[in-house]
């Protein structure tokens, strides 16, 4: 690319990075659907997929993806066509944009924004609009109820999710995602999760809120298959349904990666000196958190909607607010601020 200007290189690099992130999202959907079915099988004492691809049914998700490509596209006559078509794309975009500010290894980040973490929360909120849009545009009662529940749940849990990261921002003094990781250098006891008791609580608050934010069990109210058929994507078929599915599994990995970046040292290995594969370290942390998320999903029964709201507004928000004050006091009293 010798003849290209800096701007040309920048655009090409960004487009390559976006393609890479899109590939990561698609891989998430393929790997994690298979993993989810195997984990669910293990927890429920059965095998899960075993035939497709011979070894442990590893190709099952690939086969599902190919099958979805051949499925007929149905847009109900009563639906609001424009919104119906745009909603899955918006959900997908909300997820893809957030990946732009994930620091994979030193310097390997698509958009090194000073507002990094804030930007991630801002663009992932677009998913809520997409879900509400899908539910409304379907002109289907199940879809509308699912969307209303989904929106109420996601906006509620966005507050403890964002509040739980503020103690970390206090300790870093920057919203840049690379700065947050660099501040945790030097072994696992420098990770923010082990920094002080308030940050330890904040991490678990983040984890619980992230399960609710991705609409997964025990907080899968928007998609309760026994009450609402499929929730907001009841009317979607084929590729458009696949977009919701892709975004859901991509978001599952995204919240795990953000938790790793903010609380679990990002690309740093637990033991100093083992940092030879930063991006791989981050991915392993993410996959372990996803496994924990699946473990929770297949172990706990679904909560009721009033319990859901109780947990968010009366438990998690006060606790995260206390964590912020506590973390600030800890910084002052421990003499870190000099």
């Amino acid at each position, binding site marked *: 690319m010798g003849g290209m200007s*800096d701007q040309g290189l*920048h*655009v*090409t*690099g*960004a487009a390559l*990075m*976006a393609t890479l992130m*899109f590939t990561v999202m698609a891989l998430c959907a393929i790997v994690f659907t298979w993993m989810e079915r195997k984990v669910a099988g293990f927890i429920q004492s059965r095998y899960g997929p075993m035939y497709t691809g011979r070894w442990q049914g590893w190709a099952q998700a690939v086969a599902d993806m190919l099958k*979805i490509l*051949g499925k*007929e596209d*149905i847009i*109900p*006559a*009563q639906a609001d066509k424009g919104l119906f078509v745009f909603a899955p794309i918006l959900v*997908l*975009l909300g997820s*893809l*944009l957030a*990946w*732009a500010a994930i620091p994979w290894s030193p310097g390997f980040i*698509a*958009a090194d*924004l000073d507002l990094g973490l804030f930007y991630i929360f801002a663009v992932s909120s677009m998913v809520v609009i997409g879900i509400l849009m899908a539910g409304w545009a379907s*002109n*289907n009662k*199940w*879809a*509308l*109820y699912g969307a*209303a529940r989904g929106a*109420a749940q996601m906006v*509620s849990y*966005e*507050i403890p999710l*964002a*509040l739980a990261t*503020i103690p970390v*921002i*206090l*300790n870093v*003094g920057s*919203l840049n995602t690379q700065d947050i990781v660099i501040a945790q250098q030097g072994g696992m006891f420098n990770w923010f999760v082990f920094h002080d008791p308030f940050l330890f609580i904040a991490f678990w608050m983040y984890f619980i809120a992230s399960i609710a934010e991705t609409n997964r069990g025990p907080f899968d109210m928007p998609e309760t298959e026994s009450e609402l*058929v499929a929730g907001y994507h*009841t*009317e979607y078929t*084929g*590729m458009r349904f696949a977009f919701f599915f892709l975004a859901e599994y991509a978001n599952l990995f995204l919240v795990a990666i953000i938790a790793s970046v903010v609380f679990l040292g990002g690309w740093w290995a637990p033991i100093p000196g083992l940092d030879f594969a930063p991006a791989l370290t981050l991915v392993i942390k993410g996959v372990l958190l996803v496994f924990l998320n699946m473990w929770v999903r297949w172990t706990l029964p679904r909560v009721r*909607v*009033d319990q*859901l*709201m*109780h947990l968010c507004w009366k438990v998690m*928000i*006060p606790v995260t*607010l206390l964590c*912020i004050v506590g973390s*600030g006091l800890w910084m002052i009293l421990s003499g870190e*601020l000099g």
Partner: protein
Amino acid sequence: MNLLLPPGTATPSLVADYATVLIFILVGFVFAGIALGVAKLLRPSNPSPAKLTTYECGELPTGSSWVRFNVRFYLVALFFIVFDVEVIFLYPWAVVFKQLYPVPQLGALVFWEMIIFLAILSVGLAYVWVKGDLAWVKKLVDRTPAESATPAVLEEEVSAQ
């Protein structure tokens, strides 16, 4: 994004970083278009009126689906706006706290200002909590039965007859 830029190039500006975000949006649309386009080539398409009806468990749908739903959802949205704005205000404070606290005569101000801000918001949270608006099923106000317009004496007389 400085993967392809030769070493020693000036670090990309704010505009360049947000240009990356714009390119992400474009690439997102392109990939969505490709996926839908490929699917369009592969999939069958034979719509029928029955297939295009709204799904209501196999029954013919009754009425419009744009129905009224629980007012709670709107209240949750209202609380969300209040508390989300709070979170937005907390971010700038959190970013400068470490830097400003050691500054003489500013440290205590920086700390207590946010404590007061949080306290005011906690009062708001406590208010909606006490009013019962955070509970999904709100208790109805206890209503004593309406008083009868007939004087008690007259009622007794009537019942005595």
